[in-house]
């Protein structure tokens, strides 16, 4: 029995736990919804950061973009957006059931597609950059977006937009958004499991290992890089739209483009769980979120100092992550053959990297 043959079982178990959790702990359904959001963050970051070796510090851009696109679509279908944002603080605007749900569905779709389109454009700009330039460039994109949105009156500038209010019981609303975020995380996980096993996964890993060589072998590296970014952006955009509707109010600096919180959590969770593995980001997100929710309130103003120290400690001492460490410790369980033994069927489908990977090219 090893981890590879356990995988289908784990997926079913996860589905069961995910659906049962809010029914068992209804008081915590919001925190649990955020947990799945964290899983989405970690998984989408790992597509580029772990599997492709492109460490982005600006993935939050697509999250915020999705949020704003969805808000504009949801409101713009029925009202004038500029009027809505300027009137929003004085009058209460009510959406009917039908208006809300058509707006919501179209908003989610527009957020996913719009973010993916933005990824095409951004990818054209940033993918010529390598290594740390890529990290700083993407961070610049996210910060620039936050500053731009904060000065754009049409979408409410720095004071933000209130989204349409959910027509229904608060209890039902919580469950509704929980299930949406869970479904998105689950679909993403299943999708990535399939994706990493295809030629696309291999190509992306080849780019991580040696981009020049991959190029020399005839891979269209730019095309693969752009596709990877589009996939990440699509899911992040939808997640942003869902999260924006869940909290009902969006604002550029702290909710839509939080470069020093969610943005950095993504990287931390992946490093904590194990970069470049399918389950690492999930494990990292769960550990990080649980620890954060339990301890955050005890720090009283020291949270961010603790966060900074945590970044330093994880980066310096524990970069292979939980799953990476387990693989190093018990390689047989993960279907990795350590020494040449008797002939077996080559059943290994996972691409695994044990040593911390270093970027030669700059």
């Amino acid at each position, binding site marked *: 029995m090893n981890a590879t043959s356990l995988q289908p079982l784990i997926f079913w178990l996860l589905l069961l736990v995910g659906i049962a959790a809010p029914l068992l702990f209804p008081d915590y359904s919001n925190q649990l919804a955020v947990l799945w959001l964290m899983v989405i963050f970690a998984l989408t970051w790992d597509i580029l950061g772990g599997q492709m070796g492109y460490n982005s510090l600006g993935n939050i851009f697509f999250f915020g973009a999705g949020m704003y696109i969805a808000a504009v679509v949801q409101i713009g279908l029925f009202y004038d957006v500029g009027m809505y944002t300027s009137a929003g603080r004085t009058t209460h605007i009510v959406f009917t059931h039908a208006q809300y749900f058509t707006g919501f569905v179209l908003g989610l779709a527009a957020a996913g597609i719009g973010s993916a389109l933005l990824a095409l454009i951004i990818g054209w700009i940033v993918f010529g950059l390598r*290594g740390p330039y890529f990290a*700083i*460039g993407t961070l*610049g994109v996210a910060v620039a977006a936050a500053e731009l949105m904060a000065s754009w009156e049409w979408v409410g500038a720095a004071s933000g937009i209130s989204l349409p209010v959910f027509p229904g019981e608060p209890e039902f609303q919580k469950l509704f958004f929980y299930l949406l975020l869970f479904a998105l995380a689950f679909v993403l996980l299943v999708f990535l499991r399939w994706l990493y096993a295809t030629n696309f996964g291999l190509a992306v890993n080849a780019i991580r290992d040696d981009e020049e060589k991959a190029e020399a072998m005839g891979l*269209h590296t*730019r095309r693969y890089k752009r596709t990877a970014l589009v996939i990440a952006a699509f899911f992040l955009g939808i997640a942003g739209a869902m999260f924006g509707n869940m909290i009902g109010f969006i604002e550029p600096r702290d909710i839509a483009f939080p470069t020093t919180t969610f943005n950095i959590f993504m990287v931390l969770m992946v490093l904590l769980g194990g970069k470049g593995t399918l389950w690492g980001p999930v494990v990292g997100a769960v550990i990080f979120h649980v620890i954060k929710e339990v301890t955050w309130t005890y720090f009283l103003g020291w949270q961010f100092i603790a966060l*900074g120290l945590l970044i*330093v400690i994880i980066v310096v001492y524990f970069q292979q992550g939980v799953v990476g460490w387990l693989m190093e410790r018990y390689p047989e369980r993960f279907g990795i053959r350590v020494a040449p033994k008797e002939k077996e069927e080559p059943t290994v489908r996972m691409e695994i990297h044990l040593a911390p990977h270093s*970027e030669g090219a700059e």
Partner: protein
Amino acid sequence: MDQIISNISILKAAPIFNLGLLIDGLLIGSIFALAAYGLALVWGVMNVKNLAQGDFIMIGGYLTWNLSRLGVEPLLGVPIAFVTLWCIGWIIYRAVVSKVIARDLFTSLLATFGIAIVIQQSLNLAFGPDTQSANADLPTWQFANGLITVTSTRLIGFVCAAILATTVILFMKNSRIGQAIRATAQDARAARVLGIDTEKVYAFTFSLNAAICGATGALVAMVWNVQPFMGTTYSIRLFVVVTAAGFGNLPGVIAAGFGMGVFEQFGGFILGAQYQQALIVLLLLIVLTVRQLQQLRERQAVQ
């Protein structure tokens, strides 16, 4: 938009204003050039991109501000901040940077980002989020019927920055350890073969950089103001300066530092102060895109 056009027309109508902005930009640019030299030094020698650079500056600034509150002359803050930051830099090198130096660049980037967050938040807890400034009570000179004002603190800042930069450059050129640093930057392995203790060189370089930042911070507190979260803006500025010039190119770094100061003065005047941060980030994106286009021309990638 109207605001921008009217600001531009002011610049056209009174050309003497341009001169005033230019002088201010150059005086402030000297401070950027100094700190950017430190960043370029660490980048070139250790291949570490220090994202906590701006936050080292803020520590130096807060130190000077506290000293001035105690009645110490702010100018004395420059040497005090230099020495204190030297020690802090050495501790940070030993505790964190020495452990990530051999790893890939993203690791050191993240580690210094973590340090930056710790410094920002600690300053915020200790001194609160308000902007502070160490007033030196020095005269202001006016020229051309008051259209050009030169505050003497800015001039002193400029002179101090020039003296510091010259000292450091001469030190790097002539002293034994300076030669060792340059040798390590050229080829760390060869330097080790020839008997240079590269570990010591790295520790020295990082501490020197922190010390330069500390002195810069003291000047910033005198000339401008300090605030816990301003460090990030400085880091981005310095990154822009060094990326635009290339880290091996010392005259380029200094020129780009002056350019940054002038650009910011004019940009701030034309667009208004609230766009300052957006302007710097925009400049970063432009510089990175231009660099990328240059690289594209050199590489022949499969499209």
